[in-house]
């Protein structure tokens, strides 16, 4: 009996020791849920995970354009921007070992458009046709020079595998189009393969040894080896995440919701660092259809009255900077008025004097709504409240919960005077997202255009021109021309640009490339793990 007990204790101790050995595994955190079907997912964490499990036809570049990936080249057939031909890379393997062909790509596009979820909206009505085994044609409902770039968020699936897992659903012969199966399995070509997924809890993936780009890369140091196993967790409480990070139970945090004191704590903690890849444009829309922000001079007064420096000061050590229509880390960024970004109360008073509310400032009230629970958004409202009080203008700061807050922005009548959002570059191509999608009536609408101003015909014409200009450099010029023109209407207050702080352990190396878009840099193919350093730090 005694001997059995001793053996059991010894066995348990051995198991305990096993738990703490340096493993080739990386634990990653993001949002509270992952929608892993590439035709359904569209949020940050979805896209970040999709870039690990799947591959797009084209891959975004650090310069803001795209490069060949699953597709080796593409062309507008006979110059027709509504008819695109893509030539696929040969020898690309799905995780089940079968080869990617034009059949898979055409099926995936039809599935994507028919289901009408996730990132499919910006594509419009696209039909796909197989030309030969490695060539596929796409027919658009209207010409679009940006179509190849939009495909950075289109991830082909394995047709045969999906068809084998069709469940009951509302898509006729296609049932649920494999949606239920794909939420907990993958059918991709990506660098990692899904092992298990409990939605709202965890997703586990392992390295795909036959990944078409290969795993040998002289870029990395001798101790930096590919990550073998990745566990994506879904936690939102940052006190808990801090505990995990400091204990070494969390290796990479992708949501970046740390508070200022927490970021300082991370900076002080040995063996942990903050990595910046892309950021969020903090944008306060001003509703041009609701008094008193319906007056352009009134809106300009707000821009001049705001104390940018006071708000920004504590965040500057973490890379927060001024911003504009397009975030400052994007190619083609142009600083916009007011410049320099300083409080100028005299100029604000001049603008107010020109507004139709000049003689009734005591009676007007500006309603500022932020997403309830987000302290840094409330901070912007309170700063504005203090600044406008100096001009005798009352600001009401309210933080309704997200469902109510976002629903308010469904029409000009229900949108408050000012609403604050953080726009990360989550839509491809990002420059189009920050311009056409936000300032053109055919853009994304809703929270993305809660200024409700689409009257400047020259701005609209130039925005449309960006979508018919194939040459990227020429398009950049148009974007540069557009930014001051849009800013002149004072449709938004841009308090600052917030680089997303990705907290990570020192032994997690990467990313190899910093691409200013949500997803591509977060593919673990762009990261490595230094097991020697991990052992040194964690034992």
């Amino acid at each position, binding site marked *: 009996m005694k001997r059995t007990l001793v053996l*059991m204790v010894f*066995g*348990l101790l051995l*198991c*305990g020791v096993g*738990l703490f050995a340096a*493993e080739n*595994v990386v*634990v990653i955190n993001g949002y*509270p*849920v992952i*929608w892993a079907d590439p035709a*359904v*997912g*569209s*949020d940050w964490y979805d896209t970040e995970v999709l870039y690990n499990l799947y591959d797009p036809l084209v891959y975004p570049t650090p310069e803001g354009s795209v490069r060949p990936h699953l597709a080796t080249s593409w062309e507008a057939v006979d110059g027709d921007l509504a008819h695109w031909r893509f030539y696929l890379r040969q020898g690309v393997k799905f995780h089940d070992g079968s080869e990617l062909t034009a059949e898979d790509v055409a099926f995936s596009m039809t599935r994507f458009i028919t289901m*009408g*979820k*996730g*990132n*499919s*909206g*910006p594509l419009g009505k696209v039909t796909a046709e197989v030309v030969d085994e490695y060539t596929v044609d796409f027919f658009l409902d209207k010409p679009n020079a940006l179509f190849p770039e939009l495909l950075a968020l289109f991830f082909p699936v394995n047709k045969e595998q999906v068809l084998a897992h069709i469940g009951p659903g*509302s898509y006729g012969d296609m049932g649920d189009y494999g949606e*239920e199966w794909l*939420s907990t399995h993958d059918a991709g070509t990506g660098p990692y393969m899904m092992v298990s997924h*409990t*939605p*709202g*809890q*965890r997703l586990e993936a392992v390295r795909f040894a036959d990944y078409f780009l290969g795993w040998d890369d002289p870029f990395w140091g001798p101790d930096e080896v590919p990550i073998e*196993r990745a*566990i994506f*967790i879904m*936690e*939102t*409480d940052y*006190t*808990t995440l*801090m*505990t*995990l990070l*400091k*204990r070494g*139970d969390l290796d990479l945090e992708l949501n970046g919701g740390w508070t200022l004191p927490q970021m300082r704590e991370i900076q002080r903690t040995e063996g942990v660092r903050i990595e910046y890849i892309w950021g969020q444009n903090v944008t306060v829309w001003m509703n041009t259809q609701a008094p008193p922000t319906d007056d352009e001079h009134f809106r300009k007064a707000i821009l001049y009255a705001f104390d940018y420096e006071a708000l920004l000061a504590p965040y500057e050590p973490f890379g927060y900077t001024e911003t504009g229509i397009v975030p400052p880390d994007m190619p083609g960024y142009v600083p916009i008025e007011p410049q320099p970004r300083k409080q100028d109360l005299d100029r604000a008073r001049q603008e107010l004097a020109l507004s139709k509310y000049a003689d009734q400032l005591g009676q007007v009230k500006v309603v500022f709504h932020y997403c309830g629970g987000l302290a840094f958004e409330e901070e912007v409202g309170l700063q504005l409240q203090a600044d406008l009080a100096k001009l005798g203008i009352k600001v009401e700061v309210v933080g*309704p919960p*997200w*469902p*109510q807050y*976002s*629903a*308010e922005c*469904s029409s000009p009548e229900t949108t408050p005077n000012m609403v604050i959002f953080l726009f990360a570059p*989550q*839509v491809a191509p990002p420059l189009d997202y920050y311009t056409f999608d936000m300032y053109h009536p055919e853009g*994304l*609408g*809703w*929270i*993305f255009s809660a200024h409700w101003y689409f009257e400047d015909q020259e701005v609209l014409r130039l925005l449309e021109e960006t979508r018919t200009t194939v040459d990227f450099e020429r398009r950049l010029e148009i974007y540069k021309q557009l930014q001051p023109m849009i800013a002149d209407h004072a449709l938004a207050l841009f308090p600052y640009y917030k680089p997303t702080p990705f907290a990570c352990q020192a032994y997690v190396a990467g990313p190899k490339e910093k691409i200013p878009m949500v997803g591509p840099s977060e593919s673990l193919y762009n990261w490595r793990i230094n097991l020697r350093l991990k052992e040194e730090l964690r034992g």
Partner: protein
Amino acid sequence: MGAYIVKRLLQSILVLFGLSLLIFFIARVVPGDPARAALGNLATEEQVERLRAEMHLDKPFFVQYYYWLISVLHGDLGKSLYTQRPVTQDLVQFLPATLELMLFATLISLVVGQTMGVLSGYFRNSWFDGLFRVISYAGVATPPFVIAIFLLFIFSQLLGLAPGVGRLPITMAEPPRVTGFLLIDSLLAGRPDVTLVALKHMLLPAISLAIAHIAQEGRITRSSLIDVQQKDYILAHQVHGIRPTKVIFKYLLRPSIVPTVTVMGMDFAFLLSNAFLVEVVFMWPGFSRYAVNAMLSKDLNAIVAVVLVIGLTVALVNLLVDVTIAFLDPTVRIRRRGG
């Protein structure tokens, strides 16, 4: 007793029906667009409208309720907009983790609370009694999530004595799922090492949940015990020289715990509501954490299912409490028989 249980069960069904109607209504009048939430920010207005129609959100309230009720009667609670899979599947996934935690917390509160209450009552006005009363005031007054953050910070982050969060270390694989109760499943899989690790992980969240109940139940047991101690028959036992331990366990404890058992029924419901924040703090992959996320994302089907499960739990626990009291207190049985 059988007829009584059947009557109570029928009452519970009626209560659940009313509850479903109420929560179905509340979930729909709260501002926010569930279709938009389900499709993500980038969906076009056309896509959102199509989903609204699919979810019958474009129909009058009672028509929506009719569709929902028909589905529920067929065992289908609908699809979760938050996890994108059937709500029943979510419940099967997440509920056992919470039940296991709650049962463990109840066990702790029962054992510790009763012991403290009995000792405090028996040695009333001693230093131990004074200390217990002070601690119990603090225990009742402090919200469990505050205790959770405090315990996590002290024992996990600062001292490194307790494991971090979750039911198991993040990198550790769960044993094959049979019951969903990790302590049982790990034993069934022949993995006592996993049982031990799971037990360690459960300790801090369970204590966070149990402290308020230890204090509450201990105080009630103490008062009740003091009350029973004044009875003539206890004095008679003592005069006849019956051993003090026998007096406590045989004659004092049984009548003294009747009020505690009554309170425990309600406490179990409170435990479920307290678990909402404790699960968030400890990253406990349970039903309460799922419920919080479902509510934040206005996941209509999940919200209704969550409330129904809570209602069902409260109804069943109350029934169990009534039966237990009838067992412990013969006067209740006699009254129900019409005596």
